[in-house]
């Protein structure tokens, strides 16, 4: 689209216009940071992800420096090779878990939000059973209540939950993991699962190799102390791996159970699909009733697309998403009309849609006035919510939440990524020991009532740090729906 005023060269003006146009990530309302011009997305709070990365790098580095030379000499050359492959896989899956979109659901547009409000108002007068801000659907014969998200201004799809840390609704929300510094949801669950499985093998492998190394060195009556003195790095590895193996292997086992039964951590903690006492029987409506099929659908299923279109350009005269801040809106409506022939038909119709849409969807008043003033689309404009913060592209100081009770910064929250600390668990006998494992887990949990709830971020898989929190399991049970 060339500017109508006579530019020196239309192509140059077009380039300038492209540069001036903002991308959608620049006005993204959630608490995320973007890098590489929107290609990479991370949660604004990186949690203890640098610690995770550091531990992996240091331990693996020590392994290659101290243990591999000895073991290559005395055992086999495969040792560094296997270790290297596992290390690479661990790193890649960790980075993919951290740097990818977990399945963020974009917030409702003002029109959509208004339509939903209208429906709620209409049904409020007639509904008598369910609270006004829930919608009941029957999924595979099981009644499921969909909750309304006040931040995103929409009814959350099934299995979607709002992460308080990232301030986004995430599809198939599992938990927010500070160890990887991101939510774990529909799109990155397979990366997360691969990460913890590879990490289990990696830590177990290093632990085994270090033990073998020290045992070989201590042979001939030389003693363990002598062996440790010869190879001090191994001592560090031994300590790290000893504590890590239990928790990571346990976590992998737990998530294997979740994958096999097609549940999320969120649902498991809330007991959504556990049999209620005295109520009607509930079954997981999403499970395929077949362990293999469940595993394959979650881990090998088609990769869903990212819904937030980070790198798309903002239409020049549109306020994006509900409650967007005032943006600089250049006067473009007349220009777009004239230059419309250069676009495809879809663009024509879309721009026709957007120009009139603007004046109805941005009630906050804009620097310029749109010529289309005769629109009466919205009965009431979309309310501005004060909690919209476009993510700045620069990095802010990451919050190192080593304690998992980070104080809530906003009172208006909802959705509860549950906090869980696994200290010890045994992978086999998953179904039997699961309830006992729950008792071992100490966590702070506030159940998701769909309204204003405050929940600290989830902590999963501490490598060494064990944090005991009080569990509110009873409370979660009573508030289960």
């Amino acid at each position, binding site marked *: 689209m060339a500017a109508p005023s006579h530019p020196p060269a239309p192509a140059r003006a077009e380039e300038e216009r492209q540069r001036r146009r903002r991308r959608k990530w620049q006005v993204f309302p959630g608490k995320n940071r973007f890098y590489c011009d929107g290609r990479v997305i991370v949660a604004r709070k990186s949690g203890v992800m640098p610690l995770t990365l550091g531990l992996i790098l240091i331990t693996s580095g020590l392994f290659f420096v101290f243990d591999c030379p000895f073991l290559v000499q005395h055992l086999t050359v495969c040792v560094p090779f296997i270790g290297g492959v596992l290390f690479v896989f661990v790193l890649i899956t960790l980075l*993919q878990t951290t740097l990818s979109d977990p399945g963020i659901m974009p917030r409702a547009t003002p029109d959509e939000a208004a*339509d939903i409000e209208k429906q709620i108002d209409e049904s409020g007068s007639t509904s008598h059973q369910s609270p006004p801000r829930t919608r009941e659907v029957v999924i595979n014969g099981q009644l499921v209540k969909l909750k309304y998200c006040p931040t995103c201004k929409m009814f959350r799809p099934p299995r979607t939950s709002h992460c308080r840390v990232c301030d986004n609704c995430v599809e198939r929300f599992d938990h927010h993991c500070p160890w990887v510094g991101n939510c774990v949801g529909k799109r990155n669950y397979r990366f997360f699962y691969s990460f913890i499985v590879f990490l289990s093998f990696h830590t177990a492998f290093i632990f085994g190799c270090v033990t073998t190394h020290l045992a070989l060195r201590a042979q001939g009556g030389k003693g363990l102390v002598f062996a440790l003195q010869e190879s001090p790095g191994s001592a560090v590895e031994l300590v790290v791996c000893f504590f890590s193996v239990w928790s990571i292997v346990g976590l992998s086992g737990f998530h294997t159970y979740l994958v096999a039964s097609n549940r999320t951590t969120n649902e498991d903690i809330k007991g959504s699909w556990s049999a209620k006492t005295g109520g009607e029987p509930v079954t997981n409506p*999403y499970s395929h009733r077949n362990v293999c099929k469940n595993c394959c659908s979650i881990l*090998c299923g088609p990769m869903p697309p990212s819904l937030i279109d980070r790198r798309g350009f903002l239409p020049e005269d549109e306020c994006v998403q509900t409650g967007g801040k005032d943006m600089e809106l250049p006067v473009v409506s007349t220009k777009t*009309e004239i230059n419309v022939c250069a676009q*495809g038909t879809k663009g024509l119709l879309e721009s026709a849609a957007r120009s009139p849409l603007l004046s109805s969807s941005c009630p906050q008043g804009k620097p310029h006035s749109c010529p289309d003033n005769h629109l009466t689309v919205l009965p009431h404009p979309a309310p501005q919510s004060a909690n919209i913060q476009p993510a700045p592209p620069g990095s802010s100081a990451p919050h190192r939440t080593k304690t998992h009770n980070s104080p809530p910064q906003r009172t208006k929250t909802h959705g509860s990524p549950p906090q869980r600390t696994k200290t010890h668990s045994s992978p086999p006998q998953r179904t039997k020991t699961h309830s006992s494992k729950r008792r071992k887990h100490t966590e702070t949990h506030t159940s998701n009532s769909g309204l204003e709830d405050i929940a600290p971020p989830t902590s999963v898989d501490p490598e060494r740090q064990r944090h005991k929190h009080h569990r509110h399991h009873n409370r979660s049970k009573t508030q289960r729906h």
Partner: protein
Amino acid sequence: MATEFHNLQELRQSASLANKVFIQRDYSEGTTCKFQTKFPSELETRIERSLFEDTVKTLNNYYAEAEKIGGQSYLEGCLACATAYLIFLCIETRYEKVLKKIAKYIQEQNEKIYAPRGLLITDPIERGMRVVEISIYEDRGSSGSSSSSSSVSGSTTR
């Protein structure tokens, strides 16, 4: 082309956005992407029910094809796991290919069926796959609830 351009400009100049209808998701079969085929009352005077239902059913079929769990998706998944999922950076997944087909289909439907009736379908991917948004345009010249829009031939040769 010039004639169509003028017609489309006429449409844009003479039509204004009157209302939007949102077709919600149908969750009866789980979280797979499927939209309700219930015919909204606002479109009763605008478009034939069968055309609308055909559009929605075709969209549902496309999404079912994209999310189908079968041989090809397993292959894709296993290959991806073996390459530590780096393959997603290189190749276009089947889902993305189907999304392109959907975008093309929606554009075609808009050109041939919906725009001549003063309607416009927005691709669900632009609304987070939550709704199919149908914008209803009214003739600016007419008052009240007139349902006519300027006559447009519709399709543009591309």
